[in-house]
């Protein structure tokens, strides 16, 4: 059924998919889902596991809500969304605990905390609640896989610099002394901050090629000082 719809309107679904996959990928392009992105990305494999667990819940809940979108009363929609997401999270947690105990151990608290990941409620509220299940599937799959690659990238950077390995395999020369700081919370913040900066720089260059004004901060300081004098 889905395949036939895709054939009819290929653009809509591809566009839905691409929005989360590379146009507005959280947490790098839009500042959503920061907590898990910083907390569990000490290694690439944990970032990937966290991303995939979130994707399962995201896809499941958006499709479910989209199916029942006409039956859900507007006033009580948020509690209904929350219960649906929490139920899926509980199922995901029990499956992880049963089949992948090591991953469950590392991700720990951040598995039940998928419930409060702003990406999920955000996609339900702003997309799935108004669109068909097929489009909700494309949209949430894009956001979920986008979140997964972003977390894997952050985990990979921190793992390469912090331990000299990638997915557990040694990639740095033997003489490389691992930067222990990259595995600590400080390293998480810095990796994310620099990544956000690099992406912004790349976008600013690519998008407009507009003239950057050096000393924009100085200008603001002058304005603030003038404002202070007149006040």
């Amino acid at each position: 059924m889905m395949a036939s719809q895709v054939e009819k309107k290929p653009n809509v679904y591809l566009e839905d998919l691409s929005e989360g996959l590379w146009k507005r990928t959280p947490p790098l392009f839009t500042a959503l889902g920061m907590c898990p992105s910083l907390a569990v990305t000490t290694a690439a494999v944990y970032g990937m596991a966290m991303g995939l667990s979130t994707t399962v819940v995201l896809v499941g809940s958006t499709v479910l809500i989209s199916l029942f979108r006409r039956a859900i009363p507007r006033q009580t929609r948020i509690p209904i969304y929350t219960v649906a997401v929490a139920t899926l999270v509980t199922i995901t947690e029990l499956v992880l605990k049963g089949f992948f105990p090591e991953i469950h151990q590392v991700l720990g608290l951040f598995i039940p905390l998928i419930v409060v990941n702003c990406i999920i409620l955000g996609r339900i509220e702003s997309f799935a609640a108004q669109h068909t299940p097929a489009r909700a599937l494309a949209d949430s799959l894009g956001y979920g896989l986008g979140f997964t690659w972003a977390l894997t990238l952050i985990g990979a950077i921190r793992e390469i610099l912090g331990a000299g390995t990638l997915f557990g395999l040694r990639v740095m020369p033997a003489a490389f002394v691992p930067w222990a700081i990259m595995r600590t919370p400080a390293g998480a913040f810095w990796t994310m901050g620099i990544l956000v900066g690099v992406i912004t720089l790349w976008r600013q260059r690519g998008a407009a090629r507009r003239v950057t004004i050096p000393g924009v901060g100085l200008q603001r300081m002058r304005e603030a000082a003038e404002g202070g004098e007149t006040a």
Partner: protein
Amino acid sequence: MTELVLLFIGAALVNNFLLTRFLGICPFLGVTRELKAGVGMGIAVTAVMVASVLVIWPIYHWGLAPLGLEYLQTILFILVIAAMVQVLEMIIRKFMPALYRAFGIYLPLITTNCAILGLALLMVGENYTFLQSLVFAIGSGAGITLAMAMMAAIREELELVDVPPSLQGTGVALITAGIMALSFMGFAGLSS
């Protein structure tokens, strides 16, 4: 008594929710542009944390645990928190309109603030007594308020500094948070 003091210090400084545990980062980056809003948000989060201990601890230890329904904790906790935040929102809107305007969209988002649900899950996970849970909530809230206030104060100064255009906003905030996290690592020896 000593144990409770250590629990408080541990929750506020050593395992700071924002800078060590990474719980509640969204408002930490979102509403820390102004000192007043940052502190207000910290206090609101603390209030919801204490309230959630008062409600969730009895529900878990007298309801879920005796019945063997612990696996329902995530669903039940988030519903209780959502209801409580709604009540708090109504109170603030009625009595503190200025504070309400400063929070903007972040007040309803306290529900999806992972610090609150995280606190509830940590509290039952560590099997704290009622008193310990209360101290844990107040300590965690104090730590969040402290970090939010520091961050907001630094960002007010950053407004006047010549930050590279690509790092303005979230980028420089994250790097600042990293330096703060580094300094908080210095507390690691205080208590376990």
